[in-house]
């Protein structure tokens, strides 16, 4: 075994330039927040926003032909580039949605933005890490930031409860993941993803060792928790409901996408030889996740909880593509996540806009009559709901279309049928929001605070994203296809 040298060059730094930029800005915001008074904390959020924008441009420093850095620990390939851009979009939209919200709820602390930035760094490491340890570190950086963020409304018992539950169960799940990593290391002697793949190819007999299989199972559980697959999903509704809405949006999109990034990278890059083993259990998980998510969502009356179950169901749809595992399947995972980012953040931002201090207005009944009081906002919400339900010409339709056609191409006909049936069930609770907005008389006057312009901007961007992806999907699919090429 070679001696591990901590040695790196400027070229290595370029590869993780966006992570570095975000870290620097996070620290900068942290320092700034010490010096500003409570009343003048507004610019902190904008500073974080600037950091995200600069991080985006710093991506260009590292663009090249699949470079590995830091002794092959992290990489910069089209796959992680796609995800990094997605995470930056998520961070950007989340901060936009947060600017007014945090002030309203009294959580406009410097830490809030610092933690969002750190969580984004963690997500990026999960996408760019090609070493199990880096992926795990990225996951923990992200998770710990999120635990804190979920509980940042210290006066709100539900927020604290959410943070606590998430932390406990997250730690529990991390243990599974870490144990899976350990077993994999034990059997293959390496943590490098390419190395693991090579060992499993060269010495095929290893693949059937129980230790490898148990490691595989534990990895599935670990990642399954982060992306909320049934039966590892139970934390989701409680945490999503209790956490500040902006953080819920961040979790539902960013954390999930990061989970999938690592999941896809590890399974299709390091463990494709085990595909015969994991396909079947993934099939079951996909079906369970879609079905349970959708069916429980039917009876929800709180919109945040409903969106939580909906996000579980969407993870199930993505798993359909995962099971299909063909070229279209892999690229449609990326495509789906991108579409999902816009429609979900958009929906949560509308939820934010329709609340005010002390009154979150997250009951479905609160949405009665919104269609006439706030026509444009309701129209945007309708676009997001229709997109989540998979109605053309929204992004959600194309995403589902690609996922299910991948399943059909891979001859998983039943899976595709179950997926389509599930979409039909799901239409009920998405359309119910529209029915409340347009066809129900409000029982009480809905009190809504002044709209924060930045959150409105986030809604506009999301609407644009949903329609752009839905109407002109081919550009985005081509990008997704290029991004997964190395996995083939």
């Amino acid at each position, binding site marked *: 075994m070679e001696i591990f040298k901590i040695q790196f060059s400027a070229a290595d730094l370029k590869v993780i330039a966006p992570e570095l930029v975000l870290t620097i800005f996070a620290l900068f915001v942290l320092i700034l927040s010490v010096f500003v008074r409570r009343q003048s904390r507004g610019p902190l959020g904008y500073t974080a926003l600037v950091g995200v924008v600069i991080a985006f441009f710093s991506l260009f420093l590292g663009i090249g032909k699949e470079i590995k850095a830091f002794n092959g620990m992290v990489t910069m390939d089209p796959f992680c580039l796609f995800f990094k851009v997605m995470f930056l979009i998520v961070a950007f939209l989340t901060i936009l949605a947060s600017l007014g919200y945090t002030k309203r709820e009294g959580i406009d602390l410097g830490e809030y933005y610092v933690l969002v930035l750190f969580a984004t760094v963690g997500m990026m490491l999960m996408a760019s890490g090609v070493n199990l340890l880096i992926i795990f570190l990225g996951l923990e950086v992200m998770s710990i930031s999120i635990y804190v963020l979920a509980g940042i409304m210290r006066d709100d018992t539900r927020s604290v409860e959410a943070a*606590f*539950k998430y932390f*406990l*169960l997250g730690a*529990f*799940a991390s243990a*599974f993941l870490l144990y899976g990593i350990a077993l994999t290391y034990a059997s293959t002697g390496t943590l490098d993803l390419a190395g693991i793949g090579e060992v499993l190819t060269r010495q095929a007999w290893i693949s059937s060792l*129980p230790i490898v*299989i*148990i490691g*595989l*199972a*534990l990895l*599935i*559980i670990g990642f*399954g*928790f982060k992306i909320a697959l*049934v*039966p*590892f999903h*139970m*934390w989701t*509704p*409680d945490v999503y409901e209790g956490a500040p809405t902006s953080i819920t949006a961040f979790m539902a999109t960013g954390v999930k996408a990061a989970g999938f990034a690592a999941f896809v990278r590890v399974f299709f890059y390091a463990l494709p030889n085990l595909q015969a*083993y*994991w396909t*079947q*259990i993934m099939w*079951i*998980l996909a079906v369970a996740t879609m079905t*349970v998510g959708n*069916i*429980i*969502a*039917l*009876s*929800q009356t709180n919109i945040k909880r409903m969106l939580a179950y909906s996000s579980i169901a969407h993870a199930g749809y993505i798993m359909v593509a995962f099971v299909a595992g063909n070229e279209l399947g892999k690229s449609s995972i990326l495509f789906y996540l991108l579409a999902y980012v816009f429609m979900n953040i958009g929906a949560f931002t509308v939820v934010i806009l329709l609340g005010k201090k002390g009154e979150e207005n997250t009951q479905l009944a609160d949405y009665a009559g919104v269609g006439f009081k706030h026509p444009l906002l309701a129209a945007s919400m309708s676009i997001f709901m229709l997109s989540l339900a998979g109605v053309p010409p929204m992004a959600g339709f194309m995403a589902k*279309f*690609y996922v299910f*056609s991948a399943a059909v*191409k891979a001859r998983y006909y039943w899976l595709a049928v179950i997926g389509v049936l599930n979409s039909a*069930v799901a239409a*009920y609770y998405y359309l119910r929001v529209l029915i409340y907005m347009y066809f129900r008389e409000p029982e009480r006057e809905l009190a809504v605070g002044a709209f924060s312009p930045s959150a409105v901007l986030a809604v506009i961007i999301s609407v644009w994203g949903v329609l752009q992806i839905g109407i*002109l*999907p*081919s*550009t985005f*699919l081509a990008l997704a296809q290029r991004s997964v090429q190395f996995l083939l």
Partner: protein
Amino acid sequence: MIEYVWLIPLLPAVGFLFNGLIGRWYNLDKRVVSWVACSVLGLSFFFSILVFFSLLKLPPDARAAVPDKVLFDWIVSGGLKTVIGYKIDPLSIVMAMVVSGVSFFIHIYSVGYMHDDPGFTRYFAYLNLFVFMMLTLVLANNFLLMFVGWEGVGLCSYLLIGFWFERDAPANAGKKAFVVNRVGDFGFLLGMFLIFAHLGTLEFNEVFAKAHLLDPVTVTMITLLLFVGATGKSAQIPLYVWLPDAMEGPTPVSSLIHAATMVTSGVYMIARCHVIYSMAPVSMAVVAIFGAATAIYAASMGILQFDIKRVLAYSTISQLGYMFLAVGVGAFSAGIFHLMTHAFFKGLLFLGAGSVMHALSGELDMRKMGGLWKKTPITFWTFLMATLAIAGIPGFSGFFSKDEILWQAFSSPHGHLFLWLVGAVAAGMTAFYMFRLTFVTFLGQCRASEEVKKHIHESPPIMTVPLIILAVLSVIGGYVGIPHVLGGRNYFHEFLAPVLGGLPEGAGHASLSLIKSAYAAGAVEEIGSVNWEIILMVVSVVIALIGISIALYLYILKPDVPKRLAQRFRTLYTIVFNKYYVDEIYEACFVSSAKKIGTFFWREFDDGVVDRSVNLVAGLMLWWGRVLRKIQTGYVQGYALGILLGAVVVIIFLIK
């Protein structure tokens, strides 16, 4: 310049969005609305002309080979790849010029005509949308995009026929047009599916390049199905029934959509697909026969109508029949030529009718008109020009295009003496009913009520100027295609030849042999040496003159004769006057039985079976949801247990 072809359809779309969203939302001033609506059309027309001239600069062979202007990929899925792309060749640019040009003038006319209508902005938004869709249809480089235009114009037609939806008649007419068109569209769709199933592409260039791979039966199927689509959109037998009712829309709409542009899209589609049609002689024969039959059948119905717009509607159906006759005998460019001249003179006739209605406070019944020529001179003279053109009087545009169709119907290898005969008789009927219309409306005594009489006035310049321009075009529009036999040069066909091929040559083997066999063997050589083209031309002009003379006799010299004739041939008169009862027959055969079947399935199957089972499943799902959510206790220990159990299941499953 060719690169900017996408501006041609885009500009009307911008006008639609502006008027439809901003104009309606902010209740913009009528001047702003009409300026925007007309100027986008003017620009679109201007760009069409620019592209036309840049195309003209190229050598003839290169004109058909200009690469498609592809804007972006539209739908990519499996084997299907469709782009948003525009085809630039002589055919599409001729169509674009005709559509944008005629639309431009009709838009201007509409500013005057619709001036006092409360739905002014909505009207112009729809009209802009229509032009956008129509230009998409003619410029599309693939079947799917063409179909978007095809459906889009259908939608606009529906919206504009039912523009005054507060009244029942327009609303029902709109519905009828839409439903009848759906029948045709279904054929179009099936044809498209067949093409895709056999060739794996919908792009025109690829389809036509690969067309030789199709077997004769498939080609015949495809072309017949596409023709079904054409019969719907272009109001041919048996799907013509919606067009007369469509006259409930505003008159400029009838002029633009139901005379000059949309209804001709079937002819354009067949010309565009001439490669595959040429491979299917059976389909060609079907097209020609349906065209000829429609030409004479619709003309016969036009003779007895009293509503001036209905006369024009039947005339349009009949003229469209001519165009189908042309493309059916393989004279594709002759069909397009007639399409163009028809757009001029029929557009003008409708606008003239609108001007008459304007003068007579909305009167449509020609029995209550007469003697208008003095009070509305511009309308009268322009109307007369168009009438002379449609009647095929030498020197006017209609003469050149119609005569060419008749000659081709006779002489083309696909032609037949009988087709010519039907066409020639229909031409005589056309001359008759058009002059009947002109005479009764503009000459003689004024039969309007005293109240109306007081208000008779010429329309304002904003309406008469388009009339004059279109009148000029109706007169001179034919000179781009003078037949060789008259010593001219047929520029129009030369321009279209790179796309559509030359006109069929071969001097009428089929028709000639028929005539020959009627003669004694000794006369054969003599017949061969006669210039048949000249003879037929003279014959058709004579037939037209006879038609005009009869009209003159019946409606100017002896105005009491028509009534006596109607008495004499009472049965025939009643049948034709009631449009052969086709609407009633359709009602009895298709509409009412479809309604009955629909009601049955609605009550018994939908309510009884489908709804019940759906409600059952839905109830079950909701119940499951309520039960399953109880697992969500809120206790973190339970959740951890869930993870653990899940982990056990996963591990056991993998290990087993």
